[in-house]
Structures are given as C-alpha cells and as structure tokens.
C-alpha cells in the first residue's frame, strides 16, 4: 500500500518513528531493571541484618 511509502521519504519517516519507539522502550526497560536491582540490593542487606538479630 503506497501510503506506507510516504512519498519515497518512507525510509526517513519510518526510521524516525522506529528510533523514537526504541528509545522510549529502552528507557522504560532500563528504569524497571534499575529499580529491581536497587530493590534487591536493599532487600539482601536488610534480610542479612534480620538473620543476624
């Protein structure tokens, strides 16, 4: 369907939208991983303290 061709600028337009989607997804995934990592670090330390009590 020629609408996708974007008047032969298709490559430019779709790459821009693709990169945008990618950057947003990557930012979200990295944010989630970072939160899990920080949470786990704290959890390990607190649980270790609990055992010692």
């Amino acid at each position, binding site marked *: 369907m020629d*609408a996708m061709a*974007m*008047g032969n*600028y*298709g490559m*430019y*337009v779709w*790459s*821009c*939208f693709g*990169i*945008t989607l990618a*950057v*947003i997804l*990557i*930012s*979200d995934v*990295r*944010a*989630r991983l*970072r*939160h899990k990592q*920080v*949470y786990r670090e*704290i*959890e390990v*330390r*607190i*649980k270790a303290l*609990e055992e010692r009590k």
Partner: protein
Amino acid sequence: MWKWFHKLASPPHFYRLAATLIPWLAVPGLMLIAYGAYAGLFVAPEDYQQGDAFRIIYVHVPSAYLSMMAYMFMAFGGAIGLIWRMKLAHAVGAAAAPIGAAFTFLALVTGSIWGRPMWGTWWEWGDPRLTSELILLFLYFGYMALRSSIDDTAKADKASAVLALVGVVNVVIVHYSVEWWSSLHQGQTLFKEGGPAMDASMLYPLLAMILGFTLVFGALLARRIRTEVLYRERRTRWVREMILSPEGGK
C-alpha cells in the same frame, strides 16, 4: 495547601503514590501517541513543500520540547532541594537527567534524519535549533558525569543541583547566542519562519503527540523517582518494614 505539599513530600507517601500514578500516566500517554502517530502519518495532508518528510515533526518536536522540560525539572528539583533541603526534590532532579538526555538524543537523531532529504547532509551547523540541542546534550552529559563522580549521594545531589541551576541560565543564553550566530551565516533551517503552515488536521496530531509524550515522560520519571527515593531512604524504618512485609513494595 502547605499540609498537602508536606504530605506529598514525605518519601513513603510519595513512593506508594508514584506506584499507582505510573499506569494512569502511561496508558493515556501511549493511547495519545498511538492516535497522534496514526493521524500524523496517514490522516494529515502532506506539506506542500516538504511532502511527507515533514511528518517527522510529530516525533521531533515533542522530543525537543521534552528535552527542555526535563532540564527544567532538574533545575527546579535542584533549587527546591537546596533551599528546603528536601531529598525528594533532589531525587526528581536525579531521575529527570537520564530521561532528558534520552529525549535530547532523540531530538538530535530525528532532526538530522529529517535534515537528510531537506539539506542533503546529516548535519547542518547552520540550523540554530539543532546546534542548541547538541549543546544541551553536552549539558546533560556534564550533569550526569558530575553526579556519577561523587560517591556520597547527599553531596552529589547538592553539587549537581548547583550545576543544573547554572546550566539552566546558560540554556537561555546558548539559545539566543546560537540564533545570533546562525543569522550571521545563512544556514538553512528545518522550519520556515513560523514553522510549516499548519492547518487543523496537521496540528491536532502534533498536540496529541506532545501531550502523549509528556504523559509518557511523567510515567518514566515517576518510576525513576521511586528508585531514587528508595535508594536515598534505604536505611529508614519505613523501607525496612516495607521490604520485610510479606507482599513487599515492588
């Protein structure tokens, strides 16, 4: 009003509030972006001069707008953190930086891809907006480099807050001096003076995209703030109770 602000500013309260806030920001944001992208790509007529290439505006303008807004968050978060010594405000500043850098990078990439068909080169120094955006990216890298080179979180917060405040003054100066500079040399710009002639069917998708991007930015920011708050409060009682409680505070 002050009591509300104080309640919101209390870390445990904010930590739980942000968790519920994220879906309320992310879902409408993504829906707006879906509508905006579809309308912008297929519904809106093509620009009489740039043809379909102008559709890149629907991702370029929101990213450029957010790259500025994120820096404002960093500067205001830093100012509030320094003046009222609020850890939460510093957490906002720390959380906004990587997201702001991501959107600045996005604005630069989409801008240079858009420029390729228009100017025939990937980078046109003559375009004042792109050049200012590049300098803004360096400001972000400087902020993040300073923050990562200081181990003590409290000191890193205060030092980067000062840098963000100095930086925000300079963002304005950079903008105008680069405009003056590009007026000396006849560089082509992406926009005609008032921007591409926008009739309603072109404008609505852009507004939707900007609002959608802002909501998604809010969701990303809220998630990162939660992490920053959790890290700064890691020794407090409420964090210990939360983590030891059966359902935890994921």
